[in-house]
């Protein structure tokens, strides 16, 4: 699958050195053929908590580029290969982030934009895509699956695979408040995890639903923070699933006048916005 040299590659590892090694192996390049940019030095964390991988970006030096890389991507319905593109997570509102994910699928001669993920992510993506394709087929949902990778998480620097399901009238697959989408992701992760003997943590999206939801939640967080400040009292939000609560926490992290807390148990767990 990777017999041609890639121009750019982002790799992860426990240390910067390990990340570089893994990237070079994936690119089939030697150290003097690439320029190395350290995106994240990584951290061991405390007792394994808060540890994150080092991330490096390797770029093949000018003159050594052989051919435009075409990343291998399987699609469920359309046979046309699509390059995986980096998906920006909507965790901050400071800059209104682009709503369209995986937007640019056209070949671009000038700019090598295809950034590949680490080999482990590639394997997970391939298996996840296969399993999701079969699932949708057996559910009689006709759709195309486009694979991508998230940008490094604000907090952990971690990247995860994103499989975006695209097609006509997929509301039935999202369900109320995204319940069916959550179920689909949960089951698909279990199936992939069982196959690969390691926990899978890819994300399934449907027509950018999660992205839109993240933008909406971030706006809600800002609005409710203002309300808390104006009314000088804590504000409780509606109960939300963990990843949605996280978006609220992340949006208001570093806010000058409010902080957030989760309270309640299970399905009733919700975020409270409190004054500092």
């Amino acid at each position, binding site marked *: 699958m990777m017999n041609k040299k890639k121009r750019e590659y982002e790799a992860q590892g426990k240390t910067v050195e390990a990340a570089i090694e893994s990237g070079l192996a994936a690119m089939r390049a030697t150290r003097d053929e690439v320029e190395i940019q350290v995106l994240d030095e990584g951290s061991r964390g405390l007792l394994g908590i808060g540890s994150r991988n080092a991330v490096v970006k390797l770029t093949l030096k000018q003159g050594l580029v052989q051919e435009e890389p075409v990343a291998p991507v399987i699609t469920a319905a359309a046979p046309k290969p699509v390059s995986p593109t980096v998906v920006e997570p909507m965790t901050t509102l400071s800059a209104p982030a682009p709503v369209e994910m995986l937007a640019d699928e056209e070949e671009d001669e000038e700019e090598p934009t295809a950034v590949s993920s680490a080999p482990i992510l590639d394997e997970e993506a391939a298996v996840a895509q296969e*399993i999701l394709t*079969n*699932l949708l087929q*057996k*559910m*009689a*949902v006709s759709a195309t699956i486009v694979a991508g990778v998230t940008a490094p998480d604000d907090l952990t620097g971690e990247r995860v695979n994103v499989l975006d399901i695209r097609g006509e009238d997929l509301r*039935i*697959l999202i*369900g109320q408040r995204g*319940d*069916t989408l*959550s*179920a*689909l992701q*949960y*089951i698909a992760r*279990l*199936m992939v995890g*069982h*196959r690969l003997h390691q926990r899978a943590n890819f994300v399934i999206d449907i027509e950018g639903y999660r992205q839109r939801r993240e933008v909406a939640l971030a706006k809600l967080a800002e609005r409710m923070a203002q309300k808390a400040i104006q009314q000088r009292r804590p504000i409780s939000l509606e109960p939300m699933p963990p990843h949605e609560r996280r978006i609220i926490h992340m949006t208001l992290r570093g806010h000058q006048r409010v902080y957030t807390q989760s309270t309640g148990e299970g399905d009733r767990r919700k975020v409270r916005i409190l004054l500092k």
Partner: protein
Amino acid sequence: MKELIEYIVKSLVDHPDDVQVAEVAGKAGIVVELRVAPEDMGRIIGKNGRVINSIRALLQVRADKLGQQVSLEVLEGD
């Protein structure tokens, strides 16, 4: 329906050969009956039934597409 459940469940258990799925006509539509090896029961049901309920949600999508009523029951296997 049966095919969907079989595919999901066989991919989750340690004993796929012991998975049995049957469709039975019930009063309120189709009942999909699932049997798995006793050791796989916990895996299929999950904490607070999370796994089985998620499978039900996916089955519901299939049933809605077909315009049918369906339920999924896990039976004690032997």
